[in-house]
């Protein structure tokens, strides 16, 4: 047998799958995609870093250490630190309600959750100015009681929360829909109460989806510009990172603007890495 195998070695046959393109076509498509990505993504990304370090690392770190810039970073972290947990709790509650119960108005709730995605962030900001601003519905009453929302930190938080509203819920609803209710039912029949079911069964089932939603929500919260721009008062101190970048840029401090931009870019890169890692985890879990 071995002798036969030696004289007639089996040659692997290569045939193209019916859905595969010719090698030329394949190379053309791949090159096209890479060129496009390079032109519109990689080069601008590199430009951000090149500009930021144009005056050397010393200047770069000096810009970041500027008190105004530092306060902008702090405000962004603070805003995201409130908006993200709020949307996390809300998103979880909404997804739970929509996927595990039937109630009248369910479709309306599902549609409303998507509203912030379809409305321009500028309008989201304007809405809060109309409601809480000096000439708004509650404005006079609020200012009479010494509460400042618009042109103040609460305004940033409200606008950011509105814009990042759907991320967690949108991520969880399809996931929880696919998982159905039987795991929860099984837990209930085994004697588990409502909270126990949430912590011991639902949470472990959705933890990666939830984390994914939180990361996307956070990235958007920190990068939001339009909505916070409307509720901010550019002339007076308090700025988020995005607003500070704009302010630096308008003051012809290009290097400073780009230096601060690298902070956001870095955040975006971390988000992408985390996202890839979670997707990998989830894929392994589905096996």
């Amino acid at each position: 047998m071995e002798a036969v195998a030696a004289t007639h070695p089996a040659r692997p046959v290569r045939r193209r799958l019916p859905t595969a393109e010719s090698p030329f076509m394949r190379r053309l498509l791949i090159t096209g995609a890479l060129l496009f990505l390079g032109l519109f993504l990689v080069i601008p990304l590199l430009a951000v870093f090149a500009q930021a370090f144009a005056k050397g690392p010393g200047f770069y770190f000096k810009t970041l250490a500027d008190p105004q810039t530092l306060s902008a970073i702090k405000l962004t972290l603070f805003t995201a630190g409130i908006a993200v947990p709020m949307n996390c709790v809300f998103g979880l509650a909404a997804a739970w309600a929509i996927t595990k119960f039937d109630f009248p108005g369910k479709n309306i709730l599902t549609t409303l959750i998507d509203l912030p995605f379809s409305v321009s962030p500028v309008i989201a900001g304007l809405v809060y100015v109309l409601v809480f601003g000096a000439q708004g519905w509650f404005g006079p009453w609020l200012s009479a009681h010494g509460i400042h929302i618009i042109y103040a930190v609460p305004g940033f938080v409200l606008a950011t929360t509105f814009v990042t509203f759907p991320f967690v819920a949108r991520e969880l609803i399809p996931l929880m829909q696919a998982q159905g209710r039987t795991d929860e039912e099984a837990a209930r029949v085994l004697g588990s109460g409502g909270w126990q079911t949430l912590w011991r069964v639902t949470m472990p089932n959705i933890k990666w989806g939830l984390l994914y939603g939180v990361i996307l929500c956070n990235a958007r919260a920190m990068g939001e510009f339009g909505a916070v721009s409307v509720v901010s008062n550019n002339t007076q101190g308090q700025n988020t990172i995005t607003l500070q970048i704009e302010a630096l840029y308008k003051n012809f401090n290009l290097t400073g603007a780009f230096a601060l931009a690298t902070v956001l870019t870095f955040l975006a890169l971390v988000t992408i890495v985390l996202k890839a890692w979670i997707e990998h985890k989830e894929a392994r879990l589905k096996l």
Partner: protein
Amino acid sequence: MSVEVRNITKQFGRFPALYGVSLKVESGELVALLGPSGSGKTTLLRIIAGLEFPDTSEGRVLFYGEDVTDKPTHKRRAGFAFQHYALFRHLDVFENIAFGLRIRSHRTRPTENEIRERVEKLLKLVQLESLAKRFPSQLSGGQRQRVALARALAIEPKVLLLDEPFGALDAKVRKELRHWLRQLHEEIHVTTLFVTHDQEEALEVADRVAILREGRIEQIGTPEEIYDYPATPFVYDFLGNVNTFAGRVHDGSVEIGASKFAAPETAGRDDTDAVAFVRPHDIRVTRRPGGPAKLAARVVLCHTAGPLAHLELERLDNGGRFTVELSKDQLRQLAPKPGERMFVELRNVKIFPEDYSI
């Protein structure tokens, strides 16, 4: 120690699922709820577990005589095995089985040692000792269902409810698990209600079988009772293969071709058309007419694959078709060819008082 439902009525939107169903499962009994899909059997099971609620206040659920209708699911202590197992995928086999014990408040929770002891005992009972550290995704369907059963048994349930427990398994595993379930029941004797649409499974495993049709219980009895004395044509049809013979009712008997059969059920009717039911294995085929073999028929087809042969015949008088089941030996002796004329004898002819079309 019995489980009982009384007058359960349930509707989903405008679609009725159950109409005033009452059923009592005696202590230690294994009862099968048998019916086609949409007959309401799963809904009844879910109402007993507390996963659904009856629509009207007359609908009651009783465990050991205690009314649990208003008790929430997690306080009923019902063991439930789902058709698709519903194992917790983030927990291994051991922890899945231990789940119902670990979630108890610390006053009623067994100690760590007791939990381990009980889970190990259950693992042995369901023959999965070696797989305690596996996760559900690493198990076969049959193994998963056994884990689900062990998990349900871990809380020492007052009643064990099985929703199509073998429905998602392939035919061979189904049969094995069926035997195993019967043995398990002999061992632990927990009051059990199980839902199935497979009549063979119900007849083989259950002490009693309740047949559901469109939200009502059509008949309930031991497997022998319902098979030998089906109360309605539906039950007769649902329990096995059926041939129908058009005939005429006369004087408390029915005429099919030249044959006459006693049919006391039809006493009130005279000289009307009737349909008689005969199982394929209750028909004898001969080449020559004689004695009770009077009905002439032509051979249409002959299926010989499997342990039994099936002969398809067509009546010469009215063209009605029917199937006969024969052993391979009988087939060899008869050696029928398509188109040949045969004579058949009908045995155990069943006529129902009211006409019914299958």
